[in-house]
């Protein structure tokens, strides 16, 4: 075997922390989870190999319906976040100049200085039946009695979009900043209107940013636990919550692990599908 030259050795040494991190904290736990998910409890402390936990997911409508619901709401959240974040990102990247630009960017960032838990409780204080919004509406006279604004899907959606905003705005701003203004001007010169310029020039140019923002938001929403659980109340049903209950309150690590692996596989599949449909490649969007 050849001895390592100085350069290669340095490369390996520099890579070691990353490789250790990937192996010890990402790969190893996932392999163990995969291992646990493939066994079935026979009696006290005795296990055998089985696919029962995976079968359970597909045979019990409750579980795959929960997954479906989680996935659909995550896609919806991603869409809404994109629609709201795009104009914001455009304004920050193209319209705002100098100081106001950084102020606007900071305004997007500041809510993320407090933890997600605190932000979610903030929403709860605002929206609960005896909360600020309910009292305000009664004070103005819009409603007669207290209104409950918490514990429904719309509230969950609002909370999720709010939590995801930053992760959409940042990649969009960084791609849009690279767009040469003269390209937009050229679109107008060639007789296009605002809509044509947006559709033919801006969006295709921003596509990598849009896709990478969407991937991040989708994955974060799908894996979110706090927001849907706290804001959704009695009807909140989120797949991560199922995983949590299987592990913690049911002591059913086998089922929980199977759900974890399924979540990983199915969400990766959905991202892959999204990339195919938008004709983008993973390395082009996230790698930039």
């Amino acid at each position, binding site marked *: 075997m050849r001895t390592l030259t100085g350069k290669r050795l340095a490369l390996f040494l520099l890579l070691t922390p990353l490789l250790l991190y990937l192996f010890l904290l990402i790969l190893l736990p996932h392999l163990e989870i995969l291992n646990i998910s493939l066994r079935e409890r026979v009696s*006290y*402390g005795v296990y055998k190999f089985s696919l029962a936990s995976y079968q359970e997911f597909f045979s*019990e409508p*409750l*579980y795959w*319906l*929960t997954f479906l619901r989680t996935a659909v709401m995550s896609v919806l959240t991603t869409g809404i976040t994109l629609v709201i974040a795009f104009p914001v990102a455009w304004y920050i990247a193209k319209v705002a100049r100098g100081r106001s630009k950084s102020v606007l960017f900071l305004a997007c960032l500041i809510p993320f200085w407090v933890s997600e838990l605190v932000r979610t409780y903030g929403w709860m204080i605002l929206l*609960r*039946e*005896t909360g600020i919004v309910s009292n305000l509406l009664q004070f103005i006279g819009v409603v007669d009695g207290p209104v*409950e604004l*918490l*514990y429904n899907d719309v509230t969950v959606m609002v909370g999720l979009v709010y939590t995801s905003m930053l992760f959409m705005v940042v990649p969009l701003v960084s791609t849009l900043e690279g767009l040469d203004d003269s390209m937009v001007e050229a679109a107008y010169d060639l007789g296009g209107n605002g809509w044509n310029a947006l559709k033919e020039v801006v969006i295709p140019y921003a596509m990598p940013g849009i896709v990478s923002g969407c991937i991040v938001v989708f994955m974060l929403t799908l894996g979110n636990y706090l927001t849907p659980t706290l804001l959704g*109340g*009695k*009807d909140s*049903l989120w797949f991560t919550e*199922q995983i949590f*209950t*299987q*592990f*913690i*309150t*049911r*002591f*059913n690590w086998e089922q929980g692990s199977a759900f974890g692996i399924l979540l990983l596989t199915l969400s990766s599949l959905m991202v892959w599908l999204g990339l195919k449909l938008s004709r983008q490649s993973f390395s082009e969007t996230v790698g930039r």
Partner: protein
Amino acid sequence: MKLSTKVTSAAIAAGLAFSVSAQAEELRLLTWGGYAPQQVVDMFEKETGIEVKVTLSNNEDMISKLRATRGAGFDLAQPSQDRVASAQQEFRIYKPIDISKLDQSLYIQSMLKSTQESTSVNGKPYGVPHVWGTSGLIANTASGKTQYSFADLCSDDYKGKVSYRLKRPTLIAFAFDMGEDPFAAYGDPAKYEQILEKVQDRLISCKDNVKAYWSGGDALINLLRSGEVTLAMGWDAGGWKLNKEDKDINFVAPKSGALGWIDTFVLPAKGKNDDAAYKWINFVNRPEIAALITASAGQFTASAGADAFVEEGLSKSYKASFNQAALDNIKWYPPVPAGLETIEGKVLDRIKAAQ
């Protein structure tokens, strides 16, 4: 002095300080909120020199934590008595209690004996009783209603004003209310499943009544205090706490009987300081210390003489909730056999998922 000697002496001093702090004895306690008030922790440290590190938890979390480490990380834990034996059989996370190291005269004898029996595996006891209490109803009694049952949680009178925990006690409570005996069916999973399915249909049909499922005691107290909820299933201590602030709200024992639980002391399998653990167990069962814990947790203990030290307000609330008949009617949880949790889990999931 040269720099190098300065550095060396500083390093030695730091090393000494470290070894001293490493030698100070500590007791890592995994317990419920209120069971180890700071005052008691300080008194214990003053008397024995042992520092108590408290981690707050609940039944499922305790078992999950100890299971993940195979019984390491804590020297003393406090799961409920019905959850000790099956967790021990399944995961081997505890070690047996040496009864001779306990000051047995401090206990309510019947409770000590029944806990030892229900937590025994292969003839060895694993649990000692500490705090006990009941689950029942917390109601705003302003309407003048005196007799309550768990079925009231489904009644139209409380539409949208109800809260309970989506956990096993709720299922058990409704089963009793519907005239079944779920405890008798513990040994017969098929029968148990049948009972729970009836409960499931019932709870789904009146899901509209529920404002929110509560998960922590504080969340429930907030819901009741603000008036957003007027009838809830909850622990007696929560009801008595509210009774102090608002005399209309109190804990009531329902017609089918309140559900009684006992939280125990158990020794995790890889605990490092058993001596300190026994010292703590004996310390907190002294009547005057037990009364301090009752004051902080709002819950009564297995210590025999503590009643005399309990503050007047609490014992008044207690008497309003329990007359002798209601006390005799308490249904104590028998040990849960492993496997039932899976059945319960599915039922709970289906209730949660129902629209």
